[in-house]
């Protein structure tokens, strides 16, 4: 069986950054496995700008941002396989992949970085009643058909869900001459970035209906319209509030789900809130030598954070291959009081870096509240935030020297006054 030092599953922004970091950390034998026909992942279909403000101080389009990384991969001579699907990952770090030139191949890895990304929640999972006609797309599928394949999916569009891809597509389809009637959001707040609400909806006079959902899809063969209802505090449609919107297309932007089928197969422990692996401060899962980063770990708001996180995963994978294994005591991290989750979920004080960034999302819109951090019930950090929203990731930093005196069992991150 062929052996590689590090195998990276996925050649999107996370996989590329992890591969580059691992190589720069001195690992020669890194292999990227990518299922699509080019590197870059979903960025290739995100032709709008706004990527890379944090990383490069520039406003790049998705393909431009991806290119900065794929160019480095080429320059460093990191090998990758395209149109290659990973069929299986085993607990002892054997990776089975399939492609049309080699057939089925099983290779052994010193370390694995999971970077498979996420997928969109489909209509069926949302339980939208009505017919099942053509013309219902997840926003990302429509984005791909439009920006990569070059086809328009509809002329009169209704968008359910205010996730970022939906907001971006509202603008994109308007610019291509379609009429976007409205964006409806089940929650009382948007799931997307504020800048996208401003730049993609307000600038184009597209209404955003908060606390609304689609309660019926009309049209037997092609979408002919949707019935939209207001929802109550329990997200249940309020009878009598139904309104009909004529449209030929329904786009769905109702949440992203980390794609962890391979992780589960391998036996990696999954966090029920993030839908991604449970990891420690080195981004290692509960299987030694298997790391995770990017949207397969938790859904990010900005790609810049994906790249940063993935670089760390790549560095830690490199360290693992060289024999430095994360181990020792464990501190549990948990979110409470409005903090839905934390990544990582675990810190190992004995082997941790000098400081560790902990990222999380909040459960509601909070104004003029604080983020607080407790070590075994004792508050050690408190920072005021003017606004926090579920659509945007928040972060805190945990410093190693904070454990000099004593190591807590549990670190709690919470929202408070």
């Amino acid at each position, binding site marked *: 069986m062929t052996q590689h030092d590090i195998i990276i599953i996925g050649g999107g922004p996370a996989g590329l950054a992890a591969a580059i970091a691992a190589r720069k950390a001195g690992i020669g034998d890194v292999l990227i496995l990518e*299922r699509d026909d080019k590197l870059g992942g979903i960025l290739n279909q995100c032709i709008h700008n706004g990527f890379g403000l944090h990383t490069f101080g520039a406003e790049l389009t998705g393909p431009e941002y991806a290119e900065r990384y794929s160019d480095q991969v080429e320059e460093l001579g990191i090998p990758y396989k395209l*149109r290659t*699907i990973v*069929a299986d990952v085993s607990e002892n770090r054997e990776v*089975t992949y*399939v*492609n*049309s*030139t*080699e*057939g*089925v191949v*099983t290779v052994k890895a010193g370390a694995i970085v999971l970077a498979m990304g996420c*997928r*969109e929640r*489909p*209509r*069926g*999972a949302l*339980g939208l*009643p*009505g*017919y*099942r*006609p*053509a013309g219902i*797309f*997840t926003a*990302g*599928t429509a984005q*791909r*058909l*439009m920006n*990569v*394949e*070059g*086809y*328009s*999916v*509809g*002329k009169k569009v209704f968008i359910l869900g205010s996730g970022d891809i939906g907001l971006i597509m509202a603008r994109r389809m308007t610019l*291509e001459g379609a009429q976007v009637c409205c964006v409806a959001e089940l929650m009382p707040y948007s799931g997307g970035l504020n800048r996208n609400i401003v730049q993609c909806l307000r600038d184009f006079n597209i209404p955003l209906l908060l606390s609304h959902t689609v*309660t*019926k*899809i009309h049209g*037997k*063969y*092609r979408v002919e319209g949707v019935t939209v209802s207001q929802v109550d505090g329990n997200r249940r*449609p309020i009878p009598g509030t139904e309104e009909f919107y004529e449209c*030929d297309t329904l786009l769905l932007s109702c949440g992203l789900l980390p794609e962890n*089928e391979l992780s*589960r197969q391998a036996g990696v422990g999954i966090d029920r809130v993030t839908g991604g692996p449970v990891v420690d401060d080195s981004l290692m899962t509960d299987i030694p030598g298997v790391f995770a980063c990017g949207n397969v770990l938790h859904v990010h708001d900005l790609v810049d954070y994906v790249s940063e996180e993935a670089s760390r995963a790549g560095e830690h994978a490199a360290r693992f291959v060289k024999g430095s294994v994360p181990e020792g005591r464990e501190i549990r991290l948990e979110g409470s009081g409005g903090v839905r989750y934390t990544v990582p979920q675990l810190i190992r004080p004995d082997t941790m870096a000098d400081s560790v960034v902990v990222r999380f999302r909040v459960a509601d819109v909070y104004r003029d509240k604080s983020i607080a951090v407790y070590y075994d019930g004792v508050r050690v950090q408190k920072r005021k935030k003017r606004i926090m929203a579920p659509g945007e990731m928040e972060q805190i930093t945990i410093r190693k020297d904070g454990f000099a005196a004593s190591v807590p069992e549990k670190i709690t991150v919470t929202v408070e006054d």
Partner: protein
Amino acid sequence: MNDNFDFDVCVIGAGVVGCAAAMMLGRYELSVCVVERAEDVCSGTSKANSAIVHAGYDAKPGTLKARMNVRGAAMIRELSRTLDFSYRENGSLVLCFDEKDMPKLNELYERGIKNGVEGLRILTGEEVRRLEPAVSDKAVAALLAPTAGIVCPFGMTVAFAENAAANGVEFRRLTTVTGVERRGEGFTVKTDRGDITSRFIVNAAGVYSDVIHNMICENKLHITPRRGEYVLLDKQTGELVSHTVFQLPGAYGKGVLVTPTVHGNLLVGPSAEDCGDPEDTETTAEGTASVKQRALLSVPSVPYNMTITGFAGLRAHEDGDDFIIGESAPGFFDAAGIESPGLTSAPAIGEYIAELIAKKADARPRENAVTERRGIPRVSELPAEERSRLIKEDPAYGVIVCRCENVSEGEIVAAIRRNPGAVSLDGVKRRVRQGMGRCQAGFCTPAAAAILSRELGIPMEEVRKNIPGSELIKERI
């Protein structure tokens, strides 16, 4: 046989019953055509049902339903091997929730014995839960039928159609019957694509079988489309139960089932709602909620947050509540009112009708009739070596298009090139399961559409979900 007609037999409807009849007729020296309104076979009731092979204890002894059910179940067991479609004998349980209902459970048992169902046993509540730990504590007893099974309804219907085509049966899809008239000893079938003349007609028009029947027969039929809603869950949940779990009809209604599918998903349903419109396959918030709620009576832990889709199907319910099979007018053979256990009974109905017609036409069995068929290889299920060999022969088998169900380009191409082949996204999906997984075709739709466009030689704008009017995209930018 008869030079005065285009065909000896015209089968109206390419659902599972029409395809089974065509397959069985094709095994005689008869020329046969099948006309179908939709763009593909298996597009009506056959595509949206419980996918169950019923053991045969439900139907009243002596009825056509009972006879066809028991014979059909036995045939499917055999045909799944010779025609290579997915079938598993997983056994079924009918749960009883009230001691007062025990006589009804015993009645089912007795009926099953009379109908010739093997292996039936009444289990205590505890025995049931030992067998199926997820079953509710409220179940006090159950009827176990080990010979019940689950089948892929798409795979079975397509297998019948392909086997029929291999014996010369002609399929005319996207062809709607607008009238049936007498023509000498036979008929003229009027369609939107011209007339077809035939000596015999098989009416397998599903929810429209009353309309077709009434075009020619004196005694009128009335079919009520009865809508059933279902909820389908992710494959992660497919092992929650291993048997098909029914509920004994009781005070709470007719009951819904919880079953694994042959592909490893979990299926919950159906509701039962009579509707006037034979096209009314929409799901409703109330119907879905009611099905989900009622299933919890049997299996309280169904994880509905793992739902991947919901759908509705229509059963053709006839007022008299039995199958209507046979020669209703000279030369006109009905297979009407085929509701549950219609999927199970289909091959038996096909066999029975083919025998009747062959006898009347004095047709001999076809010499060297094709009786076996290989399905499209499911490459992801092959052992590594075999999969590699197939990829070497045809590299398209190494390109995975649908990542959720692990479907390769090679399989999609094969689905299109078969006879009768897929001409739509739905047709591809039903043959090889592309788009049937947890992302529900989010990722693979563009690629599958491009393959259809290339293989059929049509522009992308003409790639359809199913019939004309269901085009996927509007225009090239």
